[in-house]
């Protein structure tokens, strides 16, 4: 059971993490951040996150700051 921390102001909305997450736990947010980008949000209602950090590894902006397992 895992958890991730996203810095939504740093996220640029490239969505490579969405592609990377084996559990499909990331999605585009509906609200833009201060830069006008639509960051991703962590959506793990069913506690599926395995803390594999694949999302973080694929993030070009280190916007996924922490991953817990």
């Amino acid at each position, binding site marked *: 059971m895992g958890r991730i921390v996203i810095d939504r102001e*740093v996220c640029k909305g490239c969505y490579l993490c969405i592609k990377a997450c084996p559990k499909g736990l990331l999605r585009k947010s509906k609200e833009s951040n201060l830069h006008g980008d639509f960051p991703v949000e962590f959506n793990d209602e069913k506690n599926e996150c395995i803390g594999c950090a694949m999302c973080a590894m694929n993030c070009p902006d280190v916007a*996924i700051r922490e991953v817990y397992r």
Partner: protein
Amino acid sequence: METLVYKRPESLLKDGHFTFCPGCGHGVVLRIIAELLDEFNLQKDTIAISSVGCSIFLEKFFNLDVAGASHGRSPCVATGVKRCKPDKFVFTYQGDGDAATIGFNETIHTACRGEHITTIMINNTNFGMTGGQASATTLVGQVTTTTPAGRKAELTGYPLHAAEIISKCDGTAYAARVAITSTKNIIQAKKAIKKAFEAQINGLGYGFVEVLAACPTNWHMTPVESVEHIDKVIETVHPLGVFKDITAQENK
């Protein structure tokens, strides 16, 4: 109890954030480098050489001493630094324009000299910073701002294969081409960069890692399309692989 399995590497500046475009490959590679510097506990002993291209602002990203080089000349600056500070860890971070086009002579001769430095070359098959013109690694057929009708081999020839050529230099300890297009490839890329770092740490010679990376802005693709493009198209021209590893030979 929750354990922290991943965090932002310490070798990055506390408040620094990358100024790259969304989905730009530079970010992943810089993070990998920072992670390895953390793992080797090298942050305090590193001098990084920045080069001219989108990654020019290394000092705004890394918590490292940084010397800035002119376009293509960071291997020379690195040579000067390393020869004066042989105990320090010295790497150059360059683009394909920088390391394989204007500065390929410097790259090659540094490899031939077997300088104990490491070069990470981000190959996004174009001059990203100046707006996406064709570089020496641009694919035949690739549309760039200087080849709006696609690069034509009859007119401007063929892409240069940097890692393969560098592997032919006798001072090279390690030369590889990797990509950062998937978790698997990212893990591979990190291994390769680690090997190249170790070549320096162990005094074996020059380490060179070419990383195929996305430039979504100039490719006019989304980041996701871009990484797919690398896997599907670019890797057929610039194949992934380890072209030289003198430790592997020793092991044999």
